[in-house]
């Protein structure tokens, strides 16, 4: 009998038969895992399987390679913090849907788990959009396409980093950009200096991550993620943050 217990963040659930569902979790030590959970229509389970909920999961199966079953206990739900905000709901739906499609199963991604947890906790704060962009950068990095944003790739300088090279994904200092300025992507200050971001910087952050995500994830299965993300950016442009 294979079994483990771990904390995890619910990414999504697909109905499976009557009252059951296949749950996708991003767990702390076991990475992206799936399993069948029962009684999804019960009062306790409905909230526990909502995307973004932090749960304690016990996974059991006769053999390790089986789909297995989950027993879930809700630790914290994020639904109450986001249900009034369309932007937060779009961001969470988009990101959890994307993780399900992009992350291989049963490979530990502890850093990504911690960053997703930070993002979900930030949803009840004002700075949640900064955390969202930082999470996307972490995700790009954890999947093998990390950007190097702490040092200029031309001069080696650590200061005045204003651009990112679309070819190398490395930062470029303002003085070193020269005639290539228009071809480089803007690097928002909150990613390098830890300052509070304004609306323009947030939109620049979205453009930066989108550029690199679209290069690496252009298959049709990611279409819905980019559509939701686009709606989120359009909302940000039309409403004050």
């Amino acid at each position, binding site marked *: 009998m294979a079994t483990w217990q771990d904390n995890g963040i619910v990414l*999504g659930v*697909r109905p499976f038969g*009557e009252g059951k569902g296949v749950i996708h979790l991003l767990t702390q030590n076991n990475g992206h895992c799936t399993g069948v959970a029962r009684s999804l229509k019960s009062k306790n389970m*409905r*909230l526990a399987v*909502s*995307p*973004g909920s932090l749960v304690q999961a016990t996974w059991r199966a006769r053999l390790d390679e089986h789909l297995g079953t989950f027993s879930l206990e*809700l630790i*914290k*739900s*994020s*639904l*109450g*913090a*986001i*249900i*009034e905000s*369309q932007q937060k*709901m*779009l961001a*969470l*739906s*988009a990101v*959890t*849907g*994307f993780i*399900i499609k992009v992350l291989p199963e049963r490979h530990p991604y502890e850093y990504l788990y911690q960053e997703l947890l930070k993002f979900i906790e930030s949803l009840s704060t004002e700075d949640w959009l900064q955390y969202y962009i930082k999470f996307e950068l972490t995700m790009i990095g954890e999947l093998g396409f990390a950007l190097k944003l702490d040092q200029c790739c031309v001069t080696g300088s650590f200061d005045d980093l204003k651009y990112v090279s679309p070819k190398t994904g490395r930062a470029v200092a303002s003085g070193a950009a020269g005639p290539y300025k228009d071809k480089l992507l803007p690097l928002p200050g909150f990613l390098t200096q830890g300052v509070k971001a304004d609306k323009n910087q947030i939109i620049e952050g979205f453009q930066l991550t989108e550029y690199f995500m679209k290069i690496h994830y252009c298959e049709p299965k990611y279409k*819905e*993620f980019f*559509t*939701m993300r686009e*709606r989120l950016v359009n909302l940000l442009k039309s409403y004050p943050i």
Partner: protein
Amino acid sequence: MTMISQEIDRLIKLLAKLPGLGPRSGRRMALHLIKKKTSVMDPLIAALQEVRATVQTCINCGNLDSAGKQCGVCLDEKRDATTICVVEGVDDLWAMERSNSYKGHYHVLGGVLSALDGVGPDDLTISKLQDRVKNDNVQEIIIALNATLEGQTTAHYLLERIYNPNIKVTRLAHGVPVGGELDYLDDGTISAALSSRRPF
């Protein structure tokens, strides 16, 4: 040689496909039907045939009814045609009707947006709702979608699509259920209830 005849076996297999049933309950139901041919099976056959022949999806709201091309709710002149309640499915419409507290018209969306299942706006009846809002004299739209992530994402999207300054758009309240005790409620429900509190 099998113990159960081919015909009964087929019936059991069909019954076992119904929601909430499995082979075991399928066998029990089949046996019950066979034992009570005149009192249960014949009326059931007649009812199934009648439903098969008469029930259709309403061209206006998406409800299921046997009243014709339009359902009984849409044809009822006593109902308030200026208010439309948007629900996810026919089961939600029936739940609203059971409450006996709403006397307007409905619109069945046919699902909710879902990135995971690949359900996009074109899979729902949003454009039909837009047509109704444009052509009928609608004054209020009540969005009665589930208080889940997908339900509320759809609700906000719907709001964008049907926005009209002359039409009031409302939604069902989120918070403490009738008969609920605060001690047993989760943090999310309590914070939603607090943020949508109203004067006493």
